[in-house]
């Protein structure tokens, strides 16, 4: 009986704690509360942390200007839609006013529905699946959407005549990879590209690519299209090298960061081509200042995710300034203002000049890059 009683008491305490937290005061400080979720732990942590760091730099810069103030809160979602919804709820209790949505696609899709219901404006740095913004008038993307990349890659390969026979390896249990593959293959057919081999892998089998590479080699492919993140891609490069297979490699924005993989011989990446919106070696002032700051604070070269997040915060800065928004506005009021701003404004950021949005999708042109002497060079 005593045990039961103590159990009930413990339960009541728990509920009390949770309820107590609900009444957090919103807007005592005169800062806009920007929230977001991302995988800060687990297999995709590298992307979540890049976004967190990139956004933090932008927030610090803007706060240092002394005018509009921002407060940033990125919660861990472990790359899991369920946890992302929990993280989102937590941010709502914190008093989030505008949101960076989620870093990865599936969590982004899950919480974008909540954003839509609760009328909170969401601008995602990198959740690239089309379903994230589809049908939600208050969810915008700063990254290219996946289909966009597949089509652009196929067009690029066809226009530049990069390969006669093309092989594709993609990850068929991954939204990002499958999404790009599907539009790539459709556009490749439309453009008359000759795809001679298509092979797949899953997260369970991403440590050996000999089968896929052998098939591509036997089919005589001279261009290998790799719509995937850079970790498996780095393995493909080294395994292809050890079996003496030397096609051209073509990647998408997930390939960005391959030069920072630990224990990876970067000479293998020589000549790898990729489409990416961001180039850490670009010579313009803005990029260089950002890269320098990022390296000082976090000891790494920023990848595209960090740059996208940096752009997100600055896009908010521009939109909020233009709309004369004040931190005491509610999330729903800000949502209306932001929708109005983002549908009309043009934004210059690290990842593209003159970005505009239609139906939440950004229009900016991907840059073709090639790796030469361990650095990205524009093609």
């Amino acid at each position, binding site marked *: 009986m005593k*045990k039961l009683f103590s159990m009930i008491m413990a*339960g009541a305490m728990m509920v009390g704690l949770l309820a107590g937290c609900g009444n957090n005061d919103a807007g005592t400080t005169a800062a806009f509360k920007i929230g977001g979720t991302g995988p800060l732990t687990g297999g995709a942590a590298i992307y979540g942390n890049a976004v967190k760091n990139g956004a933090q730099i932008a927030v610090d810069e803007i706060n240092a200007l002394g005018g509009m103030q921002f407060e940033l809160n990125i919660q861990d979602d472990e790359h899991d839609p369920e946890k992302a919804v929990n993280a989102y709820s937590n941010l709502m209790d914190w008093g989030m006013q505008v949101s960076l949505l989620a870093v990865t696609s599936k969590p982004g*899709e899950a919480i974008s529905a909540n954003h839509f219901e609760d009328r909170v404006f969401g601008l995602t740095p990198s959740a690239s699946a089309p379903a994230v913004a589809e049908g939600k008038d208050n969810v915008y993307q700063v990254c290219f959407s996946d289909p966009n990349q597949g089509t652009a890659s196929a067009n690029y390969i066809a226009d530049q005549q990069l390969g006669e026979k093309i092989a594709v390896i993609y990850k068929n249990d991954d939204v990002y990879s499958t999404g790009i593959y599907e539009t790539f293959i459709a556009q490749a057919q439309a453009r008359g590209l000759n795809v001679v081999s298509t092979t797949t892998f899953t997260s369970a089998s991403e440590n050996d690519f000999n089968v896929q590479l052998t098939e591509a080699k036997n089919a005589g492919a001279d261009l290998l299209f790799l719509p995937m993140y850079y970790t498996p891609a780095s393995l493909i490069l080294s395994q292809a090298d050890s079996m003496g297979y030397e096609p051209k490699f073509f990647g998408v924005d997930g390939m960005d960061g391959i030069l920072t993989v630990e224990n990876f011989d970067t000479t293998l990446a020589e000549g790898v081509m990729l489409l990416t919106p961001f180039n850490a070696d670009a010579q313009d002032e803005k990029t260089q200042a950002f890269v320098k700051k990022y390296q000082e604070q976090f000891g790494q070269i920023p990848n595209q995710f960090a740059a996208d997040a940096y752009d997100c915060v600055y896009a908010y800065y521009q939109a909020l300034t233009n709309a004369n928004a004040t931190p005491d506005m509610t999330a729903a009021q800000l949502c209306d203002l932001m929708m109005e701003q983002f549908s009309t404004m043009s934004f210059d950021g690290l990842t593209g000049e003159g970005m505009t949005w239609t139906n939440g999708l950004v229009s900016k042109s991907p840059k073709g890059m090639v790796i030469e002497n361990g650095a990205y060079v524009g093609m």
Partner: protein
Amino acid sequence: MNKIKNLWATRRDSVIAFGIVIAAYIVVQIMSMTGNISYSLKGMLVPICAYVVMAVSLNLTVGVLGELSLGHAGFMSVGAFTGIVVTTVLTDAVPSDGLRLAIAMVVAAAAAAVVGVIVGVPVLRLSGDYLAIVTLAACEIIKSIVNVLYIGMDSKGLHLSIVKQSFTLEEGGKMIINGPIGVSGINKISTFTAGFVLILITLFVILNLINSRHGRAIMAVRDNKIAADSIGISTTRYKLLAFVISAAFAGMAGTLYAMNYSTVTAAKFDFNLSILVLVFVVLGGLGNIWGSVIAAALLTVLPELLRKLNFNDYRMLIYAILLIALMLFNNSKLKQMLLERRGSKKAAKTEGEVA
């Protein structure tokens, strides 16, 4: 009064289990009516219900039948995706959300039960570690199959293909399950009340089963298979019975869970989820149904509670340490002492009553 006393004496565990669930429901309802509920807690109510049903149903296999199953998430997956297909198909035919959810759950339970039979018949010939490994494999197989499943719907009806999408939908058609991309744009119809009713049904069925002739037969199989065989209990039949009922409820929990999120992928229902539910069952106590209810609810809330308390960076570390601490406590002499003290007090009390 005597009746209640009798009920308390004979079916104490059942009374506690129902009491906890109903009390929690009332408390939450009052909180949400007075506006005292946090956004976080509100968002977690449905998943908590789903996990409670998962834990209670797994307890039937692990605690009551005594077979270690690591494939419970597989049945949840079957239920989740069946539920999604059923609710999408019935969107126009059944306008009422609650009714549609109920129908979906029934169909999902049937589908999960069928898969339970298919998995169970060969698997239940094994026991111990072998059974655990094979159920784990079954869970992975289900995950892989759902991962390459394409289901779409247009005016001609349902289209299904495996590995590659081999059908094209008419104008206005809708992909329901899109292979590895999973399901998008689910119309969220799960509610806390639906979850509450599902828990009550689960508790009612499973507690009554345990306290019935069948339940005693299942426990006899657990305690001594040879002895049970010798007195004419069909061990295979009772093993299968418990396993399939457990799978059916996991299917219902899957539907409840899936209909609470706008997107679901097969990858969510992997063996990690099976292990998570197993942790609920083990921490709540094998065979202890109300223990499972409490463990599932608390351990689902705990990581979010730690987030609230601003342990952000160490959140999952603390969670793991708490789990280890609870496990140690469950096996410790301290707990035994506490239980013994309670037992002796009770004994003294009954003695006093007799005298």
